């Protein structure tokens, strides 16, 4: 099989029509992983027994001539912040280095119920904190397009696995851009759904008011298929929205003529790489030629998004990560004499530098005397950022921006400067703060053949329009179209 262009429908049909067994397909992916992954580092652990058992079930269905479920036999990767029953889930951290969850994340069990074959757990920045995947406690991930460069983060392993044909699709998580930014750097599609669209039950919590689960895929249609499968109310997550799930795949084919597309000058200003700007401007022209109406808009509080994000996210993280204390699961420091010494040494030895930095920043921002100046202030500015979008969406149906100010940077380039690393998320954090959906799709490449990403943002729970615009653009620029 040519794994290179294998989409969800192509994989499923091949298994359905008995052109290949799901078992042989999974084995083929494992061979590819064995060959390429020592160079890339996309996977942390493989779940071969579970994958082959599921593949066997799909083969039985196909051999009996029964209709396969929507992801029947489709090999996928799962970011290591999503729990998988019986398969180690470390969240990229030493502190969970031996943690084997007794339960499945809802998004994972929904994919498996739809026939997907779980190849393994993909590498990520520790607790999803990072923009380059260099904060993984285990090993970095390299960009399949250029191994001297980062794949982005924090879902770097998921994006690299899909880009390097080591999975047909993958799940990632996005708190400040962690699905869209690596998708952009690796030249694949990454969708962050609306806050509440997908249950977070089983997601190792980083910042609960900002965390999202979503797909990383090769095509927009595949993202729609995965979203349709994982979206919808889950009684195990009280923040999951009780709203009907549209048929995102059917919605893709609706025309885009007449849609109003907003372009915000704040996303095309200082700090934007010239080649990225040209590619995005060309994409905007392409959308116009497809009949969309381009409307200039302003999102005036954009420049406050990074400082707002790094206070809100770290404050929530400092609270969420308090649970890692060496008592009930995970790593415990040896030979501590008292309980409090055990807590401190466990956390000291178990957490990496960036995680400690964020816990410290968040604890500081929440501490007596600083709460109002930092945390409350940031929550108020968050309101202003959300209002910017509300205002914009009273005039337009979607907004297009670059996903990132630059293409993939080199390993080590920003590792010593946390602030420079944070600025890599400048165009993505706004959607997390507002809770709106966003997608990154490939829109050309730099002269050095590095992928460039186009971001499309939409109204709350209007993934259908976001996907429709993305699909129309993707089809219009496809070589065969």
């Amino acid at each position, binding site marked *: 099989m040519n794994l290179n262009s294998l989409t969800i429908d192509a994989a499923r049909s091949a298994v359905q029509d008995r052109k290949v067994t799901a078992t042989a397909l999974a084995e083929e992916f494992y061979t590819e992983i064995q060959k390429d992954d020592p160079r890339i580092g996309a996977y942390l652990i493989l779940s071969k027994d579970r994958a082959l058992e599921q593949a066997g079930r799909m083969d039985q269905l196909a051999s009996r001539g029964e209709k396969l479920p929507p992801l029947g036999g489709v090999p996928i990767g799962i970011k290591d912040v999503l729990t998988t029953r019986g398969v180690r889930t470390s969240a990229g951290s030493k502190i969970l280095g031996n*943690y*084997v969850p007794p*339960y499945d994340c809802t998004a994972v069990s929904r994919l498996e119920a739809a026939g997907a074959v779980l190849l393994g757990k993909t590498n990520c920045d520790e607790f999803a904190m990072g923009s380059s995947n260099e904060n993984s406690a285990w090993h970095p991930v390299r960009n399949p397009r250029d191994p001297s460069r980062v794949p982005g983060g924090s879902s770097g392993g998921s994006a690299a696995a899909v880009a390097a044909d080591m999975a047909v699709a993958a799940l990632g998580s996005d708190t400040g851009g962690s699905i869209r930014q690596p998708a952009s750097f690796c030249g694949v599609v990454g969708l962050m759904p609306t*806050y*509440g669209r997908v249950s977070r039950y089983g997601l190792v919590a980083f910042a609960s008011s900002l965390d999202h689960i979503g797909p990383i895929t090769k095509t927009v249609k595949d993202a729609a298929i995965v979203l349709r499968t994982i979206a919808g*109310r889950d*009684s195990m997550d009280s*923040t999951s*929205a009780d*709203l009907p799930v549209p048929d995102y795949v059917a919605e893709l084919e609706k025309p885009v003529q007449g849609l109003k597309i907003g372009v915000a000058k704040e996303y095309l200003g200082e700090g934007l790489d010239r080649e990225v700007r040209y590619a995005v401007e060309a994409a905007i022209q392409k959308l116009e030629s497809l009949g969309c109406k381009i409307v200039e808009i302003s999102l005036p*509080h954009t*420049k*406050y998004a*990074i*400082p707002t994000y790094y206070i809100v996210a770290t404050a929530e993280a400092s609270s969420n990560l*308090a649970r890692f204390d*060496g*008592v*009930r*699961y*995970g*790593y*415990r420091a040896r030979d*501590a004499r*008292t*309980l*409090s*010494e*055990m807590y*401190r*040494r466990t*956390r*000291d030895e178990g957490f990496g530098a960036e995680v*400690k*930095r964020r*816990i*410290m*920043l968040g*604890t*500081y921002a929440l*501490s007596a005397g600083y709460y109002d100046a930092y945390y409350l202030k*940031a929550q*108020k*500015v*968050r*309101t*202003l950022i*959300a209002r910017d979008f*509300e*205002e914009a*969406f*009273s005039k337009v149906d979607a907004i297009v921006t670059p996903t990132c100010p630059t293409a993939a940077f080199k390993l080590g380039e920003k590792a010593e400067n946390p*602030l420079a690393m*944070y600025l890599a998320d400048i165009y993505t954090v706004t959607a997390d703060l*507002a*809770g709106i959906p966003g997608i990154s799709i490939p829109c050309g490449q730099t002269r050095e053949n590095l992928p460039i990403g186009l971001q499309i943002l939409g*109204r*709350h*729970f*209007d993934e259908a329009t976001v996907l429709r615009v993305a699909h129309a653009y993707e089809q219009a620029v496809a070589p065969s179209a």
Partner: protein
Amino acid sequence: MKVTAKDVSYVADLANLELSDEERQRMVRDLNSILDYVDLLNELDTSSVQAMAQVSDRYGVDRSDQRSDRFAYAIREDIKEGLRKSLPHDVALQNAPESDGTFFKVPKVIDR
């Protein structure tokens, strides 16, 4: 400088982190550099702005004609659908660093 070495010690204590001398020095530098940038927020007068703690806080606030449906999770009746059996005892203990089969074991809590 906003954050001193003393602040770092105090906050590390709150966060149950020990931190080596080298880590403390670096933390002073990094936190100051990040908080200097966060000062940008003080350009904005937010005295009459409501805080947003959750995405659902914006639900119902917006009077513009958004096409999106309202957040259904903002306010809801109490329901029992989430109730389920707890994990079996042995499964709950299987990831414990130390256990006696009934309880999680920890080092001495009170020194006397």
